[in-house]
């Protein structure tokens, strides 16, 4: 029951912050709202007992990406950081797409009965994810083990670092 209350609070917080993030006139505020959304998401992960994931979420997203955003905003804003949202037509388009999407997806979601569905996650997996298991899964090459994607990801990140430097450096 307490979980439910926490969830509801988190859910309302996330939705409101998301809305603020996409409607805020000032880009720096938008970035801040994004940060709140991400933190809220980390909260959801904790509720789901994905502790490691929550940690990663906060460290990478909140610690890394949002900081990146804020630097970028400082580097690119000239007079104030106003987002002049005058294009009514575009906003209308966006609203149409969003509302329609929510309606259709929501309808599908609520109508659908998922298979293997257990109403009570505690029965099946209500325990903390073992760090040892995560580490083994990341470093192994067996089935359900992810060394190869992990390595590929590291190469990707390397490529990103080089790419980022190359693109952003002064000529």
């Amino acid at each position, binding site marked *: 029951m307490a979980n*439910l209350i926490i969830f509801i609070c988190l*859910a309302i917080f996330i*939705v409101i912050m*998301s809305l603020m*993030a*996409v409607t805020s006139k000032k*880009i720096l505020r*938008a*970035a801040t709202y*994004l940060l709140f*959304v991400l933190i809220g*998401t980390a909260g*959801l992960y904790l509720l*789901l007992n*994905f502790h490691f994931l929550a940690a*990663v*979420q906060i460290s*990478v*997203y909140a610690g*890394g*990406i949002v900081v*990146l*955003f804020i*630097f*970028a905003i400082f*580097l*690119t804003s000239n007079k104030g950081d106003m*987002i*002049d*949202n005058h*294009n009514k037509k575009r906003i209308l*388009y*966006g*609203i149409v*797409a*969003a509302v329609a*999407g929510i309606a259709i*997806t*929501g309808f599908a*979601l609520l109508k659908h009965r*998922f298979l293997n*569905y*257990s*109403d009570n*996650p505690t029965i*099946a997996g209500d325990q903390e994810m073992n760090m040892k*298991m*995560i580490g083994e*899964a990341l470093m192994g090459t067996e089935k359900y083990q*992810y060394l190869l*994607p992990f390595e590929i*990801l590291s190469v*990707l*990140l390397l490529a*990103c670092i080089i*790419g*980022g*430097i190359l*693109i*952003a450096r002064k000529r």
Partner: protein
Amino acid sequence: MIKMEYYLIVSTLMFFIGVYGFIARKNMLAILISLELILNAVEINFAVFNRYLFPGSMEGMFFTLFGIAITAAETAIAIAIIINVYRNIGSVNVRKINKMKE
């Protein structure tokens, strides 16, 4: 009891709010922020499905994990590009980036 649908509704809302932002905003950074929202919503879904439908396994979680890493990479590159564009044309308004079209 928190039902799975509750999580999904939250992620759906987040996703389409992101879509709205992507379509409606002009500032490239704001678009990128919307993009983060979209990705985040998807990642929540992975985690939720993992937990509720396949509680014994960890695929969903790892997918989320990799997703976060790739998002980070993508954002880094995107921001590098945006900064570069800004240097060249002095704006981050997407409507003004049409040099290649002409």
